[in-house]
Structures are given as structure tokens and as C-alpha cells.
């Protein structure tokens, strides 16, 4: 089976601003594919180009075997889209919103009744079915939006930062719903800036200033990280930090409670000993330990430590 989405050299500029600077994508079917990136990295612009809302400045896109934007209208029937902002109608009730969306997608009368009932029970909307969408909480809105986006059983779901206004419990439930959809064969593309969400994706692309900085399964990315990760425990973390700042091979230092999390150049020989030696005069109690990379380390290494960038020490 072909990829759900493939793109070559996809780029988009808004006037002088380059939002997406030429990316290649091959998103396999029946998986959750994540776009991880800071605000302004081109996540939304890319998703909007995939569903034909924006026309690429250059490059080509194929979605579910159809060229976009030429065959956008064909694609739209097979696609569900959740916008970053809640975009159902706040002055309609939950049930009315679902009914409207089902009709817009040409779901026949009988089918409509069955599917709406199914979504209402699946996504726990029964108690609020008669409530206006404007009165719902963040988590409820999001469940409603997902229910509305899946009424026509799309093959592909595009979710643009779906959990940005949602509490952790609702986020967990939301992801469980996504895995249920994937199990039924749906391909999901989700953008996020939460590490824990990115970790749940089958594959992900780390976007940075309109480019893909790294791409792969979260575990692969952690293994392939272009840095050595060291953690330091010490009494005087301020002094330790100052000492680390002087070392050219230290690329990033972040404090996590009582520890410092350090990314070093990968080609540094014997990194633990190098750091211990550098710290000894300032904080003799420092304990240095090499640890596995987290996705956050991957993200930092991929987005903020590119060649030519100033060393990232502030964070």
C-alpha cells in the first residue's frame, strides 16, 4: 500500500516570510505520525497545505493517492481535520453540531443516526448532548471536535495541536481514542509541542524553522541523537553551571530540580572524566553520570544546536 501522505520539496512563503522551507514527507498508513516543533516552526502551515487550505509555493504533495491541491475536493471526502482552535458552532448544541457535520459529509439519514449515537457513547458526550458547544470545557470541546471529525469515517485525520487547551487526564483519554482509531486503520497526523505526546507517536518529524530537523521513531531518534547526555548532581549548581559554560564541548545545560542536564558534543572523548575534571575546583562534591537521551534532548539537539548557532546555555 502506498504512503498516506508523501511530499517532496514542499515549501510555502508568506510574502518575505518562509513558513515551510522545502520538506519531504512519507507518512505510512494506519500509524500516528507526529509533528513536533515550537510555535512558528511550520507545523500548521504544512497541515494546511496537506488539506488544500493553502497552496504550496513549490513542491508536490500526494494525499491518499491524490495530488493536492489539484484533487483537493476528492481528498476532502476522505479526510478529517481538527483545527487548532475549536471551530464548531458554539451556539449549536453538541448533537446539532454532530448532525450538521454528518450532513455536510453526506452521511445518509440511517447511517447518520447510528454514527452520531456511536460517537456520543464512544466519546462520553451523552450527558452533554443537549448542551451548547460554547458552554463546554476544553476537554469536552475536544472530544466533540474529534467525534465531528470522524463521523464520515475518514481514512486520514489531521489534528493541529489538538490538546493545547486540555487538562492531562483529558489528554490521556484523547490519545487512547486516537489509538483506537489507528487500530481500525485510520492514519493520523498530529502536531504538538508536548514531549510526552510526541513520545506516543509511531513516528515523528521534528520541525524547526520550516525544515525537518530530525525524523524517525521516538526511540530511534533518542539512539541517534547527535550529543552525549550527562547529568550532574552538586550542592552549588550555580557554580557548576558557570564552570560548564567555559567548556567548548558543552552544547546545552538545563536544570532539572537538583540536577543539571548537559548535552555535550558527541565526539568528546571520555565525556564524564572531562566534566569531572572541569568541575572539581569549583564544586568538589559533583557527581557526574552519563544517561540515555530523552525526546526533549533530541528536540533540543535537533532544533537549537545546529551548526553555527550560539551555544545554548540559558535554558
Amino acid at each position, binding site marked *: 500500500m502506498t504512503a498516506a501522505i508523501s511530499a517532496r520539496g514542499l515549501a510555502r512563503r508568506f510574502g518575505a516570510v518562509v513558513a515551510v522551507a522545502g520538506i519531504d514527507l512519507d507518512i505510512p498508513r494506519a500509524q500516528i505520525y507526529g509533528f513536533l516543533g515550537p510555535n512558528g516552526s511550520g507545523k500548521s502551515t504544512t497541515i494546511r497545505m496537506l488539506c488544500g*487550505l493553502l497552496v504550496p509555493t513549490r513542491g508536490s504533495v500526494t494525499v491518499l493517492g491524490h495530488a493536492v491541491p489539484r484533487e483537493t475536493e476528492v481528498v476532502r471526502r476522505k479526510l478529517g*481535520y481538527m483545527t487548532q*482552535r*475549536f471551530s464548531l458552532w458554539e451556539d449549536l448544541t453538541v448533537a446539532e453540531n454532530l448532525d450538521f457535520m454528518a450532513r455536510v459529509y453526506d452521511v445518509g439519514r440511517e447511517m447518520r443516526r447510528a454514527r452520531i449515537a456511536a460517537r456520543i457513547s464512544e466519546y462520553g458526550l451523552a450527558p452533554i448532548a443537549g448542551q451548547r458547544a460554547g458552554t463546554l470545557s476544553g476537554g469536552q470541546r475536544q472530544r466533540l471536535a474529534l467525534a465531528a471529525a470522524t463521523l464520515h469515517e475518514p481514512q486520514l485525520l489531521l489534528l493541529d495541536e489538538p490538546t493545547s487547551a486540555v487538562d492531562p487526564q483529558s489528554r490521556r483519554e484523547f490519545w487512547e481514542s486516537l489509538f483506537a482509531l489507528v487500530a481500525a486503520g485510520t492514519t493520523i497526523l498530529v502536531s504538538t509541542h508536548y514531549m510526552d505526546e510526541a513520545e506516543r507517536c509511531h513516528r515523528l518529524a521534528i520541525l524547526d524553522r520550516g525544515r525537518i530537523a530530525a525524523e524517525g521513531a521516538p526511540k530511534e531518534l533518542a539512539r541517534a541523537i547527535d550529543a552525549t547526555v550527562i547529568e550532574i548532581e552538586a550542592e552549588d549548581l550555580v557554580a557548576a553551571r558557570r564552570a560548564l559554560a567555559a567548556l567548548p564541548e558543552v552544547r546545552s545545560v538545563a536544570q532539572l530540580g537538583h540536577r543539571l542536564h548537559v548535552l555535550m558534543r558527541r565526539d568528546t572523548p571520555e565525556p564524564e572524566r572531562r566534566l569531572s575534571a572541569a568541575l572539581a575546583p569549583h564544586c568538589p562534591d559533583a557527581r557526574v553520570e552519563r544517561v540515555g537521551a530523552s525526546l526533549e534532548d533530541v528536540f533540543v539537539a535537533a532544533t537549537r544546536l545546529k551548526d553555527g548557532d550560539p551555544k545554548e546555555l540559558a535554558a
Partner: protein
Amino acid sequence: MSWLARLFAIAQKEVRQLARDRITIGLIVGIPAIQLLLFGYAINFDVRGISAVVLDQARTSLSRRLVGDLGATQVLGTIRQAGSEAELRGLMQEGEANVGIVIPPDVERRIAEGGRAALQILVDGSQPALENVAQGLAAMPLLRRAGAPAASRPVEILVAWNPERRTAVQIVPALCGVILTMTMVVFTASAIVRERERGNLELLITTPVTRGQLMTGKLLPYVGIGFIQVTLVLLLGWWLFDVPVAGSLLDLYLGALLFIAASLALGLFISTLAQTQFQAIQMALVTMLPSILMSGFMFPFEGMPELAQAIAQLLPLTHFNEIIRGIVLRGTRLADMGPELGKLTLFLAVMLTAAVARFQKRLD
């Protein structure tokens, strides 16, 4: 089938949302009612009880009857007799009389021949409204009764359908158009821009809904609202100001439908330009004021400068005013108003094409 089903889904959603928007519902009924009362009672172009002086040089039974008829119109209040032209001018100069009427000695022959003016009306030009009064007097049916050829006086026609020259009779039909202009354009423009502002449109345009379904579905409910407003104005006009509908009601509603469609198309076009509801309302106002001032609602169309007349030709209200005054006051058939219908249809076609061309199912 599914094409219509989707269109209907959108229309129904719009009606549901409207029904929950109490203030808008209030405006739909309130705007026509308030405007009608305001314009019907407060604006009064009628001039009555003007003081006049008559110099009757003929002193025949006909001339006495002419003076009597003039008095009966109530436009002239006290009518004084002057013995000479000097006395007449004197009275006018002192402000004792604002209008002077001179009946020449050979008035009967002048009426019979129909060539020269039978009466001479002198007007105090320092008072603006009086010239209209003079024209009104000149158009009084008294001359026809005296035997003058009727066809040579086109002004007579107007007088014949509003003999008392009551403002309400002219105002009520024209108010239909003014109210539709005020509400239809703003309602549609903001209905679509609201969806853009709230982010609904971004979702809606990623669905299989076509541009045609989206636009027609959103506009359809407003056609109904337009009809409600027209009906309300005409009912109130008939009930409060005794303005009957002389022509066919079917013609009236067909004409109104065309004008509503033209106004909605304008609103639609504005909605493709505006990013916020505030901008949409400002743009609607830009078209609203000229419509109200230049369409012949406020000032007689013929009295406007040529440039203003040319601009007025671009406004749908100008043509609708012609149509509705024709149907309501003169009982004209819609089929006889080809030029107006044509211009309205042209406006509708141009606006609709522009709106559809500008409205893309994209964000860029």
C-alpha cells in the same frame, strides 16, 4: 439530491443560529417598525396653509372658481385679494403673502387655446420649500377641469395618485427598500464574516461543501427575513398611514425578491473583502448612505446633479424604489418595468460573480 441536502443543512444551521440570537431577531422586526414610525410621522414634506394673494384681472365665474379650488387644496391658507399688480408685489415684499397668483383678463381664452400659461404664480424665492408648492399648484387638477388638454401636463399624473400630496404615501413604499438595504447587506456580510472570525470557516471549507452550497445555504434564510420585513412595512403602512397597495402583491414580492437577492449579493461580496465583522459593517455603511440619500428616497431623483444621478444608477435601491413605487402607488405591472428589472439583474449578476470569484475554499 445530496447537493440540495447539504444546502438545506447549511440553511437550517443558519436559521437555528439566528433563532438563538435574540438581539438580531429583535432587529429584524424592530428596524422596520421603528423606521416606519420615525419616517412616517416625523418626516413631513407637506406644506400647508401658505398665505397667498390673488390678483384676479378677469373677474369671471371661471376665475372665481379657480380661486375657490386653490383654497380647497389647503396648501394655501388665507387668500387675500389684491386690486393691482403693485399691491400684490407690495404684500409679497412685506411678507404678508408668500405666493402670488395672477389671473390674466383673458384667462378663459388662454385655457381654451392651451398654448400660453393660463395662470401666473409668483413665488417668494427666499423660502426654499415654496418653489415646490408652486409646482404643486401648477399641477393641480383644476386646470383639467377647466378644459385644458390633460396629456400636455405630465406632472398631473403624480398628483392624480397622491392628490393630497401626503408624504407617508411616498415614504412607505420607499421605506421597504431602505430597510432592506439597511438590514440585508449587514446581516449577510456579518453572517459570513462571523464564521471566519470564529474559525468556523476554516473547518467548513475543508469539508466537501461547495462554494455554491455554502453561499446559497447561508443566504436563503435572509430571503425569508427580507420578505418578513417587506410585509411588516406594508402592513404597518396600510394600518397606520392608509397606504394601500394598488398593484399586484405577486408582482410586489417578485420585485422584492430580486432586490433582496441583489442586496444579499452585495453583502456576500463585502464578506469576501472584510476580515472582521466590524470591517464588514463599515463597508456596508459606505454603500448604505449613498443608497438612502441618492436613490430618490430623500430627494427627487431629477433634481440631483448629473454625476449624482450616474452614481445613483449603480445603486440597486434606486431601481427598486422605482419598481415598488410603481407597484404600490400607481399599480404598474412588474412586466412593464423592464429597464429597472434589467439593471437590478445586472447588479445581482455582477456582484454574485465577483463574490464567487473572490470566495475560495482556501485560506491564502
